[in-house]
């Protein structure tokens, strides 16, 4: 397998000198995200996110399972990130790469450890039955910043997901098929969104939402996840350049405004998907009549 190509000296120099003038190769400012497109549906819990040329697909599914013995009244949430050679040409198939571990850890920290989804609400009968929710994240194309794209995809897919309704009468548990009773959404406590920063040279130069080329020459990175209550849920700074406190504060302020922008996009996408769904049901009713 061919290793992911390193950048040439020419490209490195051009990107760095561009950043010094505040110009990025794709024409955006250093504090701009690339264009973000979120497509939800056609099924519940399917989200396709396009961040520039980075493309991520998240799919949520559910099944009924027995809860863990040490947490008898909680449902399960599993996040599964799959890096394939389709998006990562240099990937060695077989064992998880460092990048894969990093992505899945960050997602786990942001969504699972932060209890973004109400897992207690997923319990059906304590110690007996609970919903197990799976989030599968697939990377279709990589043009940098896969973490933010994956986080947006996972959060939007979870918000869009509906699970079958359940009624419990005494000992009897009935799971209503989707065509008989409207499926119910998951209860989501808060929505953490990741924002990635990349740092260059001695830390004076930085950008938000780095592209693949910028990621290849960055000397350090920082990931901040902020939720809708403007609380910082995750701050990950795994090695690289040491940073000034002022830079971190500046970045977290910028991250907060970016997160608001992303959340608006997600809400628009959800509203859009609901509109499409409504029209579909209307059409079905008309055809039935």
């Amino acid at each position, binding site marked *: 397998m*061919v290793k992911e*190509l*390193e*950048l*040439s*000296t*020419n*490209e*490195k*120099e*051009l990107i760095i*000198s*561009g950043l010094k*003038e505040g*110009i*990025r*190769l*794709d*024409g955006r400012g250093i504090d701009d995200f690339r264009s973000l497109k979120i497509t939800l549906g056609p099924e519940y819990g399917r989200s396709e996110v396009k961040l520039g040329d980075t493309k991520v697909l998240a799919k949520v599914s559910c099944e009924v399972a027995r809860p863990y013995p040490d947490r008898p009244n909680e449902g399960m949430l599993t996040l599964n990130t799959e890096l394939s050679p389709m998006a990562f040409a240099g990937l060695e198939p077989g064992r998880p790469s460092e990048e894969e571990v990093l992505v899945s850890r960050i997602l786990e920290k942001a969504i699972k450890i932060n209890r973004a989804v109400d897992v207690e609400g997923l319990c059906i009968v304590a110690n007996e039955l609970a919903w197990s929710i799976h989030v599968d994240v697939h990377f279709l194309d990589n043009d940098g910043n896969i973490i933010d794209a994956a986080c947006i995809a996972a959060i939007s897919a979870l918000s869009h997901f509906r699970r079958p309704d359940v009624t419990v009468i005494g000992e009897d548990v009935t799971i209503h098929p989707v065509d008989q009773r409207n499926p119910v959404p998951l209860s989501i406590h808060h929505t953490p969104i990741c924002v990635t920063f990349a740092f260059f040279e001695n830390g004076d130069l930085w950008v938000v939402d780095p592209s693949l080329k910028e990621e290849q020459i960055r000397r350090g990175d920082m990931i901040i996840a902020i939720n809708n209550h403007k609380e910082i849920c995750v701050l990950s700074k795994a090695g690289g350049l040491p940073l000034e406190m002022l830079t971190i504060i500046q970045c977290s302020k910028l991250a907060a405004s970016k997160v608001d922008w992303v959340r608006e996009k997600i809400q628009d996408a959800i509203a859009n998907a609901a509109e499409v769904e409504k029209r579909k049901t209307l059409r079905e009713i008309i055809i039935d009549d």
Partner: protein
Amino acid sequence: MKHSKPTERTKVKVVLPGDTVSLDVTTPGITLGPGLIQAGDSISCTKAGFLVRSGSIYWVENDQKRYIPETGEHVVGRISGKGGEFYRVDIGSAHQAILPFLAFENATKKNRPNLNIGDLIYARVALANKDMDPELQCLNPMNNKADGFGKLEGGMVLKCSLRYCQRLLTQETDICKLLGQVLQFEVSIGMNGRVWLSSDTIKHISLVYNVLKQAEALNNSECKALVNKLAV
């Protein structure tokens, strides 16, 4: 080098790997290009794409990105290593190419070229044998002059499909000409899906980079519209 414009190219049909093409192999002058192989009396395809015909030459065209070196083609490469007698160059093919120190203008055993790892070069494929690493040279074998080959200074590299490079060279997509009327820039088009470009300022380089990147998916009238929008 100017590539002669092929006479009346026609897309015959869409083909898939393994398809047999009903061509008569005994036709005098029939030539099979990339993507077609002859097995006995029948011709079958090895690539998915359009079967294209120009005169009695047939080949398969698609938006492939993996470069397969071919003698005489011009490529943009990145120096990735240095040996005792040669540089290793990454040209996007399955194997790295070698560029001997002596394959430069006026090079002797004593007078070595001075290139470092990471530098970009424009070179010509001197030897492409499927069982050996491809070999490059930075001179024109006709007159032993550099003729524009050699180290590329500054600028940026755009990676695109091989087909787009061919389109740029044959001016089937004449974006370079259109863009040249608006601003000055330099390009070296490699047949290996790499286009090196440069201009006077970083802003212009990024502009040219993005226009060329977008133009890959545009037809000529759309290219014209894009450049017109820039000119205003």
